[in-house]
């Protein structure tokens, strides 16, 4: 029994990372209607910044988010200003297509830069508390992964507050629903796009911190996490913020339980099949169409 519970707990803890990975992608898609497949590469860069902040100047990874987030936001703004801003003027379908293509080119560029700067070897952060944890009813809670889940939850809560309580956040929600109507409300849509993309990049950076502390980062990890994030985003419903986290948690638990039931080599397959079934029953995703 404990093994099942432990698996569920581990699934939840990993699911938090899935959710955070999906959060930025979902935000960018919701507001800009672009699918940035270089999202995983932004995650990768976030991970490297955290790694070097830790190994070079000894910054605790959970503190390094104060560096990683703004750096990635700025990076996102630059990327948007140079690349994606040129495609948001297209019709929605062309936006998705062109963003896929630009994202594809971007993945090649960012991976090369990463290999040149950081070498291709996997890097990981191990802090003094990396192996620490506590037991509760025979279930082990590793601190570092609890921290990851906490960061994911805090990110969602802060983002929700931002979206619901601030002018800029509401402008984001308005633009995600209909940019023309938003513009007729006096909202500077161009500026809103910048904010959304910058935030999405910042959230990708936070995910990178979690990868560096809980897994490892390497220049080629991007695609894997982009795919995972895409699946969570669609499972949750495109553009749903809270949904992205719940979707991530759900996928994490589903994977853990299927590993337990069918063997570890089938953990991802069951998750994917569950995803397809959910979609064919509820094509707009679990939390789609209810919340911006």
């Amino acid at each position: 029994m404990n093994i099942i519970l432990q698996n569920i707990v581990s699934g939840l803890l990993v699911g938090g990372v899935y959710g955070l990975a999906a959060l930025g992608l979902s935000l960018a898609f919701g507001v800009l209607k672009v699918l940035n497949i270089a999202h995983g590469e932004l995650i990768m860069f976030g991970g490297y910044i955290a790694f070097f902040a830790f190994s070079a100047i000894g910054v605790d990874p959970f503190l390094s988010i104060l560096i990683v987030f703004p750096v990635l936001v700025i990076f996102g703004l630059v990327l948007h200003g140079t690349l994606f801003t040129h495609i948001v003027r297209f019709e929605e379908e062309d936006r998705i297509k062109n963003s896929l293509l630009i994202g594809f080119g971007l993945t090649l560029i960012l991976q090369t830069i990463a290999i040149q700067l950081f070498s291709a070897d996997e890097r990981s952060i191990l802090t003094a508390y990396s192996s620490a944890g506590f037991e509760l009813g025979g279930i082990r809670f590793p601190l570092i992964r609890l921290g990851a889940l906490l960061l994911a939850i805090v990110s969602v809560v802060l983002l929700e507050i931002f979206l619901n309580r601030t002018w800029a956040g509401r402008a984001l929600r308005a633009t995600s629903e209909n940019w023309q109507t938003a513009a007729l409300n006096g909202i500077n849509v161009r500026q809103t796009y910048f904010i959304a993309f910058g935030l999405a990049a910042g959230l990708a950076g936070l995910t990178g911190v979690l990868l560096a502390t809980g897994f490892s980062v390497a220049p080629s990890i991007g695609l894997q996490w982009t795919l995972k994030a895409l699946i969570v985003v669609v499972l949750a419903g495109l553009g749903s913020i809270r949904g992205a986290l719940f979707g991530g948690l759900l996928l994490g638990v589903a994977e853990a339980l299927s590993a337990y039931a069918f063997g570890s080599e089938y953990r991802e397959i069951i998750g994917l099949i569950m995803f397809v079934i959910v979609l064919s029953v509820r094509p707009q995703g679990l939390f789609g169409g209810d919340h911006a």
Partner: protein
Amino acid sequence: MLKINQLEVAYGDIQVVWGIDLEVPPQSTVALLGPNGAGKTSSLLAMMSLLPIKAGAVQFKGEDISTKKTHEIVESGLVLVPEWRGTFATMTVLENLEIAAYTSKARPLQKQTLKEVFEIFPRLEERKMQKARTLSGGERQMLAIGRALMLQPELLVLDEPSLGLAPLIVDNIFDVIAAIKNRGVSILIVEQNVQLTLESTDYAYIIETGRIVQQGPSAELLKDDRVVEAYLSL
């Protein structure tokens, strides 16, 4: 107040507006009438910079706005209630109204205007916590107009406010429009409902296939044989 000069609008290769002239003087209510597909909505969207202007100029308060961005135009006091109403379905009524006070001009007046809007549309206050998509058609039009008022318009442009509404509600909406006019706001109203519109406006233009075919004081057009034959005899 608003002056449109030889405006041409095209979607790619397909031109839909062929050089229209139109003027809305201060403190007036002007109608732009015409059948479906005549180019009314396209003209309005081009005026608001939501469609590219192919040729011609748009002046608002003596200033050329044809190169300005939509949000700047709105900020300067030219506010459009679009044909698609322009409410945010996933937001509550209150949120819809609050977000509308987005411009720097409207923000400080938000509380005050909100009270006024609720006075004009008590229905909206009753439903202020409801999501906009749960509203009826008439309520949504009220919300759309209320939203526009939040923006402190100097010229309010209404695109087909009666579209798809029951006659009783249409009358109600036109009463509100009259009330808004009395608050000193100029109004440009685009309609297919010719009779009612002519009755409640000062001056009217008739547009057909992208060109102005007739214009004059509304009261005169109401009596004009051609207008009566084309639009009112049905």
